[in-house]
């Protein structure tokens, strides 16, 4: 994310304008979609004024302002000198809080795909280039709310690669479409009325899923709308009984808001995911936990666990419900993101490094995979084991040394190098000399001579552009729980390494901010009933223990050997490193 104030164009990565158009597709407008970091509206069409003008600045004074500069997106090379063109808020206008994104009653689905989300996304991504059929600029950020309801005659989208959200090039708004589909009507004076029947208070699952489908499937292998994969979806859509006539259709389901309700403040109730997220002070506030519903005497009519062998206090005080009731995942999830080879992300899913045998990740059966385990404080104050997917990330950074005067790395930090700068260096392809050592058809940077090659190029390419003027720094590879650095010159220097794992004793645990090569993504959905949960003593109380302590977790996708073989650690080692104390310790 670009800083508000910068001194060189090379310092600017994703600016606010880019964020709204590219990332705002999954955010409901308002906040950073409307206001700059001084609290001024980026552009006010009523006064025809930019936010910086409202505080007396001219366009020439905000060329390096992270709110008013624009860096084109992924894959777009920057011209010589790296100038930043201005953000054309005057064409896009702003992204207002999109009430109907969540509160529209009608949902147009194509399978699990929410077409309302697709239409809104396409319009947002049109950015300053969206036109109507007459060639007039369409204010894309503002018009996305209209497009998302399907109120258009024409929405032309440019061809996109699989997995890349669509981008609209042409949009012809038509409120007659809304009249035809029953959301809108004409008033007595010819004004368009949004009918009250088109509005719903509690968002339907499809509204949530529009934004959450892509990241949650990708990061957590989460699925929805499948009664066989989630006992709560089945129950809350009334599919648990023998009467199919009362089943709630997927597009009508409001199951999400049973556990994730919200009041007028719109702080949607949330749990406490491992990954660093917003509003951590509101964790569990109004959130409906497993224990809220399934405790003896609960007011919800939810089944209470009766099997005392498994639900004994010794288990329940240390092990979360999710450990046994989300035993494995049968959808692939993203497990590794390699940003080091070319600056274009290479992604590997779980099938590349895990298997249906939690003790043997190389096994041929890839029909499912088993999560890692981490510890955190639960809603009731107990510290418990929870499942998560540990996402490995490989990236280049600039290593800044701390100033405590001690020969340690405790006060050092590594600033990630923006990927557009890596692409500028590599041309978007592996450097000559980097090879595919593990034979999977994709190049990886793992051997010392490959690391030396890249660091030498980084020193030559970025060093002359002063990544951070005046500061001592060098370039390093962050991979597999280690920082890999070059001691010496690019010809004869030695590649060294040091561990970077978080220090639980210092209270720094999985914050993902200072320096990490892996981030756990909580796995809390797709809860299974007793019949398909872990229900076998020997799955845990055996050595090695596949269901709890000895399953293999990916530590380093590409080891330093000539075959780039992955390195693993056990869940026992992961949790011990995080400070978890096992019984008897």
């Amino acid at each position, binding site marked *: 994310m670009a800083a508000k104030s910068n001194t060189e164009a090379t310092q600017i990565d994703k600016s*606010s304008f880019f964020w709204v158009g590219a990332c705002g597709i999954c955010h409901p407008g308002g906040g950073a979609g409307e206001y700059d*970091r001084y*609290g001024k509206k980026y552009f006010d069409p009523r006064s025809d004024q930019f936010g910086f003008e409202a505080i007396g600045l001219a366009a020439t004074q905000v060329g390096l302002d992270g709110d008013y500069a624009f860096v084109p997106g992924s894959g777009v090379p920057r011209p010589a000198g790296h100038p930043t063109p201005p953000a054309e808020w005057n064409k896009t206008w702003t992204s207002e809080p999109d*009430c109907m994104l969540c509160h529209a009653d009608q949902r147009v689905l194509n399978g699990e795909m929410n077409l309302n989300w697709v239409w809104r996304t396409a319009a947002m991504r049109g950015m300053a280039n969206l036109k109507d059929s007459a060639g007039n600029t369409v204010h894309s950020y503002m018009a996305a709310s209209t497009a998302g309801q399907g109120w258009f005659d024409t929405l032309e989208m440019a061809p996109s690669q699989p997995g890349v959200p669509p981008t609209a090039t042409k949009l012809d708004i038509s409120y007659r479409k809304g009249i035809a589909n029953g959301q809108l009507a004409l008033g007595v004076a010819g004004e368009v009325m949004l009918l009250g029947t088109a509005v719903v208070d*509690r968002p339907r699952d499809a509204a949530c899923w529009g934004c959450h489908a892509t990241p949650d499937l990708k990061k957590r292998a989460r699925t929805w709308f499948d009664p066989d994969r989630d006992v709560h979806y089945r129950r809350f859509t009334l599919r648990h009984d023998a009467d199919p006539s009362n089943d709630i259709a997927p597009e009508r*389901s409001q199951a999400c808001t049973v556990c994730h309700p919200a*009041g007028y403040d719109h702080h949607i109730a949330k749990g406490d995911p491992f990954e*660093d997220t917003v509003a951590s002070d509101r964790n569990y506030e109004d959130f409906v936990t497993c224990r809220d519903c399934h*405790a003896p005497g609960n007011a919800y009519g939810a089944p209470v666990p009766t099997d005392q062998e498994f639900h004994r206090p010794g288990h329940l005080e240390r092990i979360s419900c999710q450990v046994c009731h989300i035993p494995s995942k049968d959808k692939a999830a993203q497990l590794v993101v390699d940003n080091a080879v070319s600056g274009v992300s290479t992604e590997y899913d779980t099938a590349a490094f895990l298997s249906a045998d939690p003790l043997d990740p190389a096994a041929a059966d890839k029909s499912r995979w088993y999560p890692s385990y981490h510890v955190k404080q639960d809603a009731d104050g107990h510290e418990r084991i929870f499942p998560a997917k540990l996402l490995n990330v490989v990236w280049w950074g600039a290593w800044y040394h701390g100033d405590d005067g001690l020969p340690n790395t405790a006060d050092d930090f590594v600033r990630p190098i923006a990927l557009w700068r890596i692409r500028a260096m590599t041309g978007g392809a592996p450097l000559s000399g980097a090879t595919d050592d593990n034979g999977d058809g994709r190049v990886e940077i793992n051997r010392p001579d490959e690391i030396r090659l890249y660091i030498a190029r980084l020193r030559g390419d970025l060093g002359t552009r002063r990544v951070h003027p005046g500061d001592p720094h060098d370039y390093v590879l962050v991979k597999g729980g280690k920082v890999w650095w070059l001691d010496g010159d690019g010809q004869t220097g030695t590649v060294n390494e040091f561990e970077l794992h978080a220090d639980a004793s210092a209270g720094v645990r999985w914050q993902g901010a200072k320096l990490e090569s892996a981030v756990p993504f909580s796995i809390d959905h797709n809860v299974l009933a007793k019949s398909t949960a872990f229900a076998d003593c020997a799955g845990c109380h055996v050595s090695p223990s596949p269901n709890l302590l000895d399953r293999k977790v990916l530590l380093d996708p590409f080891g330093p050997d000539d075959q780039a073989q992955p390195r693993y650690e056990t869940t026992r080692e992961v949790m011990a490193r995080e400070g978890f104390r096992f019984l008897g310790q």
Partner: protein
Amino acid sequence: MRTHPKFRVVGAVSAWTAPLLVLAACSNSSSTPSSIVNQPFVHRDIVLRDVAGEALTADSTEPYSPRMTCGRCHDVDAIASGYHFQQGRTDSTGRLDPRLLRPWDQQVAVLSPGMFGKW
């Protein structure tokens, strides 16, 4: 044990909607999932308006403005203070995350815990 927070009434407080709140509150007499997913809801018809607050017609080609349309009854600024809207720009008290204003040479990597500032 907490009661289900859905029983906080969701809706705008105004002369138009107050009777609806009574209706909604009365409907929340049971706390089973079946009753939660079948709560009734009523909203009045409203005029769709553009960014200038002008009523749109069937032939309008301007986008509608949620602020001008919904904001005539609802406190959009209060609603947009919710963390889903802010995505790390502000904290729960509405204050801008100070890291977002740090000059580049004082940054580390993450400017906020949310998507606005995290990447």
